[in-house]
């Protein structure tokens, strides 16, 4: 018996020793960071909200903006000696969609999954929406948050959630609505959510915006710290744009999508055109403009720095037109995204010896197609092919710079005839062979730098640093920017919405509702007046070979569309507008053209040359969902024609 006890004891002792340390495995302390830690106080919660904003701020990069890259306003050359110059391999992917590279296996601008410039690196908008949802679920946690702060932040999260949904709708049409953050252990059925019809998607966005607007401040009180955060005016403007998008032909009774139905047969697109949608949009535009006016919005007034030697009124007008876009945080900018525009060296030509000496300072690859340059009016304010006094037929011939264009084209420098006698916005927005370049170190418009694209600094440096068409998006480069050994690029934040754009949107909606009216004309004319152009009715009656164009609804629609494309050129809007108008196909019907840029003689340079034939079919209006997503969610249907 004694023996047995001994055995038992010696067997049990070591086990007990070890068993006593069951706690040995509890190694995690109590205060390990969890999701709740992100809402432990008001500052942490605000940081979380900034995380919700981060996706929006990533959209400021034009490479990820379909409105910029696939608009036909700017193309990116291919092939280059190094195709990774636009911020790494694939940086130019979205530009190349026009060359027919879009596909459903690995879509470009894939915002659904977050690849190929759809934001980036697997960060997608569904995550953004989940972040907003998580924020809304947890914002009650911080004890120290002030009620007004909480109201505002809730409204901001809702605004962002609405905007992310809206962005997806613009790209994919009908989408699933992610109104709540599904739990991680949700069943497959719960997570396989279906697409909703386009109209209910828009309805969801509008409702959400309405609740957000109620909680948002009308204006930013402390711009030094808060400029860029959502305001009621921004939300109202987004609402107006969303409603106008819903009313536009792409989404409003589009017959192309008649057969687009969900998995269980419910139609995803209404096939009947509903004019009432325009009325709603018009009302929303009015509300947005009113809100903007009460918070002090107005046309941009030029703010010049020092050091100017000579500045003529003509040049001043150009700087004002450009400054409305590049002089950040001015009264005309309704919504500006903070991240600075980082591709000035892609947009700028080489205009100085210093810029040419450092070949790595300027790349000039953002190339404006000839057709985009021809969109701008003549100095009489009508399209170049309508102007009775403008030599449309001989626009590709050349002539030396004359005194009438003294502040636009270098005197006696040979340039294309088509570059002469155009509206100021042309010279403010576009640079071309012979155009003056106020700035870049020389603030004297009597002795300006100028663009020599034939055999000067701006001519192709090699097979990499060149502009493929001979037209530069000058609008994107402020006059203060100077390229050289140590380049200085004047920083500006990217505007998403400007007052003039809102006026033109309102005009568009009103014209769709009731056709031409004084109200419509005056809205358009306000924009034209700032650009130094006569009103629509006057200009067309005096100079156009189609003088009655503004008096018909269709004619006025064309005028408003062109006005909008000119006014908002290179601002990342045209790609969206042309899609919702269903005009993209006709804009991209012909080849992208430019000058024969590699020729170093005048006569050789001024030959219209095809750069490439864009590919844009009916299916390209909306974006394909990655095939893999249809496998993981069998309840989804692919975008039509993909």
């Amino acid at each position, binding site marked *: 018996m004694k*023996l047995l006890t001994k*055995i038992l004891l010696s067997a049990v002792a*070591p086990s007990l020793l070890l068993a006593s340390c069951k706690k040995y495995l509890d*190694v*995690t302390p109590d205060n390990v960071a969890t999701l709740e830690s992100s809402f432990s106080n008001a500052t942490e919660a605000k940081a979380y909200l900034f*995380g919700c904003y981060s996706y929006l701020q990533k959209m400021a990069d034009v490479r990820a903006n379909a409105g910029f890259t696939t608009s036909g306003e700017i193309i990116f050359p291919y092939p280059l000696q190094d195709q990774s*110059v636009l911020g790494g391999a694939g940086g*130019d992917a979205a530009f190349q969609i026009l060359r027919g590279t879009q596909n459903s296996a690995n879509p470009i601008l894939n915002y659904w999954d977050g690849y190929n410039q759809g934001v980036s690196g697997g960060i997608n908008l569904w995550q953004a929406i989940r972040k907003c949802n998580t924020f809304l679920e947890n914002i009650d946690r911080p004890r120290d948050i002030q009620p007004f702060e909480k109201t505002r932040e809730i409204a901001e999260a809702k605004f962002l959630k609405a905007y992310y949904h809206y962005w997806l709708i613009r790209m994919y049409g009908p989408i699933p609505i992610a109104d709540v953050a599904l739990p*991680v252990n949700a069943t497959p059925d719960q997570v396989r959510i279906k697409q909703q019809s386009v109209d209910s998607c828009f309805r969801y966005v509008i409702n959400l915006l309405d609740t957000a607007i109620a909680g948002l401040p009308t204006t930013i009180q402390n711009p030094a710290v*808060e400029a860029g955060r959502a305001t009621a005016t921004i939300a109202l403007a987004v609402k107006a744009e969303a409603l106008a998008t819903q009313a536009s032909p792409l989404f409003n009774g589009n017959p192309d999508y008649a057969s687009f139905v969900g998995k269980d047969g419910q139609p995803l697109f209404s096939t009947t055109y509903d004019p009432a949608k325009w009325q709603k949009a018009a009302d929303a535009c009015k509300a947005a403009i009113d809100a903007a006016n009460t918070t002090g919005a107005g046309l941009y007034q030029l703010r010049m720095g020092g050091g100017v030697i000579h500045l003529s009124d003509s040049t001043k007008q150009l700087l004002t037109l450009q400054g409305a876009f590049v002089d950040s945080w001015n009264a005309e900018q309704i919504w500006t995204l903070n991240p600075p525009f980082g591709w000035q060296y892609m947009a700028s030509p080489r205009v100085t010896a210093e810029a040419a000496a450092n070949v790595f300072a300027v790349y000039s690859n953002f190339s404006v197609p000839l057709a985009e340059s021809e969109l701008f009016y003549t100095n009489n304010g009508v399209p170049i092919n309508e102007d009775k006094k403008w030599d449309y037929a001989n626009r590709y011939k050349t002539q030396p710079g004359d005194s009438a264009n003294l502040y636009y084209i270098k005197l006696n420098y040979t340039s294309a005839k088509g570059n002469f006698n155009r509206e100021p916005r042309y010279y403010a927005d576009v640079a071309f062979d012979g155009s003056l370049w106020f700035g870049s170190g020389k603030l004297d418009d009597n002795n300006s730098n100028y663009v020599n694209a034939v055999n000067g600094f701006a001519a192709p440096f090699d097979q990499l640093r060149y502009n493929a068409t001979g037209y530069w998006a000058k609008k994107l480069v402020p006059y203060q920017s100077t390229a050289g050994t140590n380049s200085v690029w004047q920083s500006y934040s990217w505007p998403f919405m400007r007052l003039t754009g809102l006026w033109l949107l309102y005009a568009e909606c009103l014209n769709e509702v009731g056709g031409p009216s004084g109200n419509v004309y005056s809205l358009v004319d306000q924009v034209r007046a700032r650009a130094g152009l006569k009103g629509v009715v006057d200009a067309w009656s005096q100079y156009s070979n189609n003088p009655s164009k503004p008096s018909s609804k269709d004619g006025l629609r064309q005028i408003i569309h062109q006005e909008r494309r000119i006014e908002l050129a290179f601002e990342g809007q045209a790609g969206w507008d042309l899609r919702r108008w269903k005009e993209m196909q006709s804009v991209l019907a012909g080849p992208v053209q430019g000058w024969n840029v590699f020729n170093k003689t005048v006569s050789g340079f001024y030959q219209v040359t095809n750069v490439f034939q864009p590919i844009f079919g009916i299916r390209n209006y909306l974006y394909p969902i990655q095939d893999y997503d249809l496998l993981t969610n069998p309840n989804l249907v692919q975008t039509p024609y993909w």
Partner: protein
Amino acid sequence: MNRCFDYLGVPLSTRKAFPRLPNVWSLVVFLLLAMATNHVSAQKTDNITVVGTVTDSSGKILEGVSIAANAKQASATTTDRNGKFVLDVPVGSDLWVAYVGFVDQHVTVTKDSREVTIVLQAVKAQADEVVVTAFGRKERKEAVVGSVSTVNPEQLKIPASNLTNALAGQIAGVIGFQRGGQPGLDNAQFFIRGVTTLGYSASPLILIDNIELTADDLARLQVDDIASFSILKDASAAALYGARGANGVILVTTKQGKAGRAKINIRYENSISKPTQMVKLADPVTYMQLYDEALTTRGQAPLYSPNDIINTQATMDGAQGSNPYAYPAVDWLKTLFKDKTSTQRANFSVQGGNDVTKYYIAGSYNRDNGIMKTNPVNNFNSGMKFENYQLRANVNVKVTPTTEVVVRLWGNFNDYTGPITDDQSGFASDLFDRVLHTSPVAFPAYFPADSANMLSQHILFGNSLAIGGALQDNPYADMMKGYKSFSQSRMSAQFEVNQNLNFITKGLTFRGIFNTNRYSYFDLSRAYKPFYYSLSPGSDVPGTPNYRLTWLNNVTGDNQPTEYLNYSPGNKDVNTFLYLQGNLDYNRVFGDHTVSASLVGTRQQTLYANAEDPDTHQPSLLYSLPYRNLGFSGRLTYSFRNKYFIEGNFGYNGSERFAADHRWGLFPTIGGGWVISNEDFWKGKITNVITRLKIRGSYGLVGNDAIGQQRFFYLSNVVPQGGDGATFGTSNGFSLNGTNILAYPNPDVTWESSKKSNLAVEMTLFNKLNITAEIYHEYRYNILINRGYIPVTAGIENTASSNLKANLGTAYSKGLDLHVDYKQNITNDLWASVLGNLTVTANKAGHLEEPAYKYAYRFQSGQPINQPFGYIAERLFVDDKEAANSPTQAFGDNTLPKGGDIKYRDVNGDGIINQDDQVPIGLPTTPQIIYGFGFSLGYKGFDLNAFFQGLARESFFMNATSQDDRSKGEYGTAPFVNNAQVMQAYADSHWSEDNQNLYALWPRLSVTDIKNNQQQSTWWLRDGSFMRLKSLEMGYTLPKKVLKKLYVDNLRIYVNALNPITWSHFKLWDPEQAGQGFAYPIQKVYNIGINLNF
């Protein structure tokens, strides 16, 4: 083999020193005597000096036979080279004579037995061979019911500083292969019975003297120090490791001292190594021509003018008037590397002791010399040198007659100096990779001084600006600019107590182990920042007044070149490990019945000083918390008359990584064996043919806790203000970072489990041929796999999505291990032996979370694990027109295929080539068959060994991308991209407009990545099987007469070669490197060595 004469080390020796059991009486006698030791030691008797000779039955003398007199502890010895021993013992004491492979004998000393000759009988079929099993227990092979492979450590001796490279083919059941030959990074990958999980880790548990260590530690182990090397393969063998043994266990024990005079063993080796096969690169002129072709064929202007090419040709030819600085043609490989390098290895050991204290002390020194050339122009030596020192001391002390303590101290120290590198490993092996990614014609390695630089103190390194304006990599400057050193050490201290608990009950013993080891690493570098120059336009040859250089990096700030050395501190890594183990063992024989039982408790903890999250590489609280494991396990065995064996095991393990209610896992197993040849009916002629026959089998559960790198599955991993944020304010003055979610909480995650069954036959034919054949089946379940079905619309953050997992996966595997050996003495002087191993595995994925593929062939479930999927390449497109009119092949980059690009088969016929056209192609990427066979021949003092090793049923894909990721072992061979050089094979066979070979090796050239041609497809699929002469060794042992004069016991001189010959279908590079052609090549080694014992 283990000498089994540790007769008082009760817990071990009671099992291992059993005489062959039929002789039950001798066992009983032994046990009685062993127990009597306490009492008889005090007796006084007359001593007698016994001089004895021990031989085998053929009269051959036996060296190293243990002789002990039980009566007196101090009286123990072993026979010398002549089989002689001398021992002072009391008259009447019992001499116990034991030798591995022979039946123990007992001789009673009488007054007349001053000179005795003892003839030992060889045991039948090595039935008493000792096998080291779980927790270092030594068991007779006969009694083992689990699947344990042991290997004679001598067979692992290869002339390389890496033990893991010796495993493949040597041990039945080990799948091993080596993918690269970078010194210090040349570990082989090895899996026991192949890859059997879909989960995170398929690596076996590695235990050295019971302590869990890494593959790196195993790699550095000195074969001369190894006493036993065992592989535990099935459930029964690994069961005691419970939740940690599912991938198999490698058990290594190091040598312990033997009583007797100090014996010294010295070995010195000197090796020369060079690549088994070097990739052949095209010459500089071909490079230029193909570069131009790659540009023009894709619609771009050529880069090199005909004039450039002619002048470069002149440089290559060394023609008169050629200018190697204006038109460089650099063979970077030759500029940087010698074609071979040398390694020295020396080790020694001393062992000896008496009955109270025994010691084994070993030291070793290895020195790997770099392959890099050094240049006298530097005043410091940037050549590479890697030194490894090890010291090991194992001391056994008998504190009381029933208590033994063991102290094991081990230090492993590495010192390295070499060129600057950004390689994680610290080794400058990346220079090889850099050389392969440097244009041979862009710039010379360095320039002679021009007039402006006559007085410059620095080297005028060549360079040119890349198209984007950045300086390029000049590998020569990288090598010369400075040096990096690192020091790495692991100190291990281990204390063991073996306590005989016979005073409680007979056969009860206790064993305790405490181990701690400390690891530390730091590196630092000292370097100058090189000055780079290019030749000014219009310059003439050096020496002329018109020879001028342009300084390329005339910058200030961080990148400013310097003529003085800068110091930069590097990584510092420290971790500690603590281990505690307690065993209680019971062994007893009751007549025909033998019973044993064990109970083991273990706990271990690891702490990392530099805890960082593997996803973000940021310091992380979670990863700083101790890693802990707690385990209890037990074993119960019973055998009857040495014929029937039955054994039950359990492991019960806890891990801190799981939620409290999923923390513990219980893993029971059962096994049995039947020695048919011990049956009474096994008589007559059959015993001459089948000398021994045993069958055994086991079935049970084992677990795996290496299931992911996530620290705590039940906790979320959140970094507040660690994610992307936003910036606001008119001058962007206010920023906050959002939250980064790395993992969502998942309280349900638990152990991965494995149901294993094993069936084996062991037999000995004609007393000479041993065959062990095993078949097994395994069902792995609860494998932690990624949730596959969650659509992106759920918004799971991408940083967390890879951590969204569940124990849902299953996998199956089955296979065969075969081991054969044969030994024959042909004459007294000539003997031969043959050895062969074969490992065949087949596995398949069971349940996997897969999307609802439309096509059955896309499912991975049911396919072998590591089954590659890809497109079926038909041929190259004939022309652009055909490419345009074929099913769309868009792979997300900006290009559509042209003539000469790869055409894929539209498997589902939908007019588009996409993932739906990817089918299983080829064989798994891990080999399914590994084999090895070899022979040894001996004639008098000469011996010859050859060992062949090979693998089969493996596919790989030539890496046709431009990948260049050393951390992932990805080395693409795409020419021109990332400045990659061109392989001669691609230069010889590629589609070109002049030679439109639709089946050329390489498709249409390009200077950029063409994704169409880089898809995983049958185009790049290759057969990975190969066989090589792994080692060949010739040795000569000096005759004893000579040795005697030198006072040396044994002296052997040998030469050997590692990997001298390889046979394979694949010719471009060493097939064992698989697809990574630009990886550092696997080495072949020629070695000369001397081994001295005295």
